[in-house]
């Protein structure tokens, strides 16, 4: 007979059950849609917030860091320069916060029904993608306004987006699994995200980083993502030296996150 399930005490490390996840793809779809709809329900501007938030952040940065503090943007108009940092960063920080809390906010479902728990942080990662895509409009507007034409480097953008997703999901899985047991994660995350922004070249350029620290700096996967985004839209050569160390870290984060999540998964219903 097909479909035999064996339930036994879970032990050790197991990797993601992709086949099972695939069976639950409809659930992932509806959770993603729920995330999108619930977020903008009963608001006047609705999805318009996906534009307002990064644009206002960009304007503030342009005034404070671009005009007042005169932070170097390598000769690129500061608004464009900072938006190409703010754009992936907004996605990263939003996804991280949401996915880290995804298990706690859905504790009532976890304790009542079985499904691959991984769909919860995954749904956060996907539902935020809509905002990310909408904010892309601003990039186009800025490119037209400053009359910048992207070149060949643009072909690398999908790879950079994958790195962005892997980083967000890897950290999201780790933190969400941790947050079930240690609610400290929830409190720490809000301000950690703020501080972490300064560890990535959102408001400044990588040229400002002293050569001796460059390698360590580039281990932050978001460094490569942001620098890569800038290069691909501004028709510059890909700064691979900034990208590859972060890519490795992103991959590691993802694999570790998945393993850790799966290991902790079996306690979720007991401690949530």
């Amino acid at each position: 007979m097909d479909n035999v399930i064996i339930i036994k005490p879970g032990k050790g490390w197991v990797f993601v059950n992709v086949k099972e996840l695939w069976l639950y793809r409809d659930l992932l779809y509806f959770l993603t849609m729920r995330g999108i709809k619930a977020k903008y329900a009963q608001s006047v501007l609705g999805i318009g917030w996906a534009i307002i938030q990064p644009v206002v952040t960009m304007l503030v940065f342009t005034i404070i860091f671009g005009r007042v503090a005169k932070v170097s943007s390598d000769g690129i108009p500061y608004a464009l320069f900072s938006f190409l940092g703010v754009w992936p960063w907004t996605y990263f920080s939003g996804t991280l916060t949401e996915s880290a809390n995804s298990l706690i906010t859905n504790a009532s479902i976890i304790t009542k029904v079985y499904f691959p728990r991984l769909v919860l942080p995954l749904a956060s990662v996907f539902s935020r993608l809509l905002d990310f895509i909408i904010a892309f409009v601003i990039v186009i507007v800025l490119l037209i306004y400053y009359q910048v034409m992207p070149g060949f480097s643009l072909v690398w953008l999908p790879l950079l987006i994958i790195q962005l997703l892997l980083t967000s999901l890897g950290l999201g899985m780790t933190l969400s699994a941790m947050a079930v047991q240690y609610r400290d994660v929830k409190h720490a995350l809000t301000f950690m995200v703020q501080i972490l922004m300064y560890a990535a070249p959102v408001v400044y350029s990588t040229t400002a980083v002293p050569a001796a620290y460059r390698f360590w700096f580039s281990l932050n996967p978001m460094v490569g993502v942001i620098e890569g985004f800038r290069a691909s839209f501004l028709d510059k050569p890909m700064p691979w030296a900034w990208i590859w160390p972060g890519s490795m870290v992103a991959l590691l984060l993802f694999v570790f996150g998945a393993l850790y999540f799966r290991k902790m998964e079996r306690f979720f219903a007991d401690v949530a």
Partner: protein
Amino acid sequence: MSDSVIIADNISKRYRLGLEEKGDKTLAGQFMNMVKAPFQNFKRLTSLSKFRADDDSVFWALKDINFELKKGEVLGIIGKNGAGKSTLLKILSRITDPTTGTVKIRGRVASLLEVGTGFHPELTGLENVYMNGTILGMRRKEIDKKFAEIVAFSGVEKFINTPVKFYSSGMKVRLGFAVAAHLDPEILIVDEVLSVGDAEFQKKAMGKMKEVTTGEGRTVLFVSHNMRAVKRLCKRGIVLSNGSVAFDGGIEEAVNFYLPGNDEGETLDTAVVEWDEETAPGQGEVRLIKAFISGNDALPRNTFSTSEAVNIQLFLKIGSTLRNLRVNLQLLDDEENIIFTTTSQNFVQGILVEGIHQAMVQIPPDLLNERNYNIRLSAGIQGVQNYILPFSLFSFKMSFADNASAPLHVSGKWPGVVAPVLEWRFTQVN
């Protein structure tokens, strides 16, 4: 291979009891505790998922459970609160792992431990049907196919495009149940979901459950406190007691085994209950501090002859002057049917002042039948506040006395939940 679809082999489940917080009497001590708190919290939280052999703060919710379930069997699981029913269902539905032992399940499982899981208030009824359906393991295409049927069953057609937050709780329950009722698994696991909604809906839900359980070759596990529902739906019953299987057999026998009175006097033994300040039922201004049940001899006991009156005495501690307090008693039979409800409202004239008050109510003789009954108590001011939510206070047993005082009942069991001695009059009219 046998045709068993579920084989539970020696499953046990261990939980950790919450650790007690330790206070310190001195200021310095309290300060030290504050400093040490993060370390202790870390240890405590980490221990939630780690167990050592020498741990004494663990609790076995289930211990060595074994059973097999054949294809098409409908099993009722009964037991008191805390007997391990829900834990067992959670293991069988893969929500939590057993600590030891294995379960083998063949076939597609759907578990229904709650109605409307995953409903989001901001989403419309329609969206929530899909949300809830996919959470329960349905595919989108399946829901598409059954959608019209689901909506028709729920009776909320008109509001299907309205956000669920504007629904009444009854509507939410109906919609949730409608989705669940259209699951089409080979194995269905159901926890106490028939106890929601109004009487009419419960009837409809019960009918649907009956239909679902008699479906072709469907295996069902059903947990409920409603003995009537269990008897109607199930053929086999397992009684859980303190985490172990206490009985496994036919449903009639299982229910008889479980019900107070046949339960080796476990519940029957209490004819006097006294509480201390903290644990007394009730909240705020009203606390039940003592209650006993007795015959006319004023001796607390749980067995009575049908020809004697049953007295229930309550001692209530009232914290401040209260107006229109109502104490209600319900008499239930051993299948949880309510036989009657009696209220003190016509007898408490207006005001009760602070202090301890005694209340007494008498069930008249020659009314009850030879069987087991339960008494449930509640108290509150109507429309203002509930002080004591309904809870089971006593159970007692009535038997026909073999003395002359009950000449009408000779012997044997009479049908009916009550057996009042009524006056018959014969007059020759022609």
